[in-house]
């Protein structure tokens, strides 16, 4: 049977994907397939909020017992990150409780940076460098925020 998963963000469907599954397979198996297809969500995260016909699905449920249109309200925030290296930005879906430093490291790796002290700054004028030790939420990174990579290493020069 074909199952449609709609991923919602702020009451709007931002992604939808269909997979083919057997009636006797479990919801957990479907979540794994959805996660592999969507790439930006993990199966466990999908299972935390997975609804069909108004009912929260449980991981051990058989697929055949439920409707074919499923919904997941995801709790990640979509962030657009720019790098000074390239004109094209990249899109990331991060948990709100992710540390800025960890997010910066993920973004830096995606842009081909190796090592260093990646950090993130806002696209406001003037820009504000986010605290690597705080969470994205604590630094007021909202869904759809545009950020830019920079190296936050410092203390370059002491000629004495």
């Amino acid at each position: 049977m074909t199952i449609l998963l709609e991923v919602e963000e702020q009451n709007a469907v931002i992604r939808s994907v269909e997979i083919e599954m057997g009636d006797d397979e479990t919801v957990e198996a479907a979540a794994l397939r959805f996660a592999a297809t969507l790439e930006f969500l993990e199966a466990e995260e999908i299972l935390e909020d997975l609804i069909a016909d108004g009912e929260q699905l449980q991981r051990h449920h058989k697929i055949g017992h439920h409707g074919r249109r499923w919904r997941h309200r995801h709790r990640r925030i979509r962030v657009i990150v720019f790098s000074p290296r390239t004109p094209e930005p990249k899109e990331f879906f991060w948990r709100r409780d992710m540390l800025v430093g960890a997010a910066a490291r993920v973004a830096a790796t995606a842009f081909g940076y190796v090592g260093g002290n990646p950090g993130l700054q806002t696209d406001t004028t003037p820009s504000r460098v986010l605290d690597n030790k705080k969470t994205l939420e604590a630094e007021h990174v909202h869904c759809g925020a545009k950020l830019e990579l920079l190296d936050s290493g410092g203390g370059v020069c002491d000629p004495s």
Partner: protein
Amino acid sequence: MIPPEETLVVTEPEICGARAWAERHGILLSWVPENLELRAVLKQANTGDEYYLRGRFRDYRAIAPEWTFSDATWTQTGRHTDFPNPIPTPFGASIFIKFGNPTLAVPQHAIICAPFNRLAYTDGAGPHGDWGGPSHWMEVSKAPQVPGQGNRHVRAETIGDMLQIILRDFSHTTGRMVFP
């Protein structure tokens, strides 16, 4: 020495990223390929003054480029008055410094002190004889972190990254540098 046409091949994709970066930040940026020279006009937020950042890329990437501030005609460089005056940054010491070495007959001048700047090395009349020369600029950037001090060297390995670091510290300046 690397033929200029080879350097152009290396720099063009990086210039592409730098142009997009400049557009995002509202910075006037121009590339003069025949001179392998990049020019960027930075505006200081608290004074409205313009500063003329110049990068030269002869033998890039084998050797670090030359970054400095110049006068408005892009000719005179290293003068204190053409440099922004640094204030403390959250990242550590500013990359904008004054330097002179009477022993080596190097007069007082202003420098962008970072591993990605050829002029920060002793060969370029800069303070750093301890970085192994401007051909080692990538290795200096990769120097390990110092316990308790974090990473002492900012890391910038493309032109866009260098501009980003310079702008980062430029945003922590007020007025112009004065001599001495």
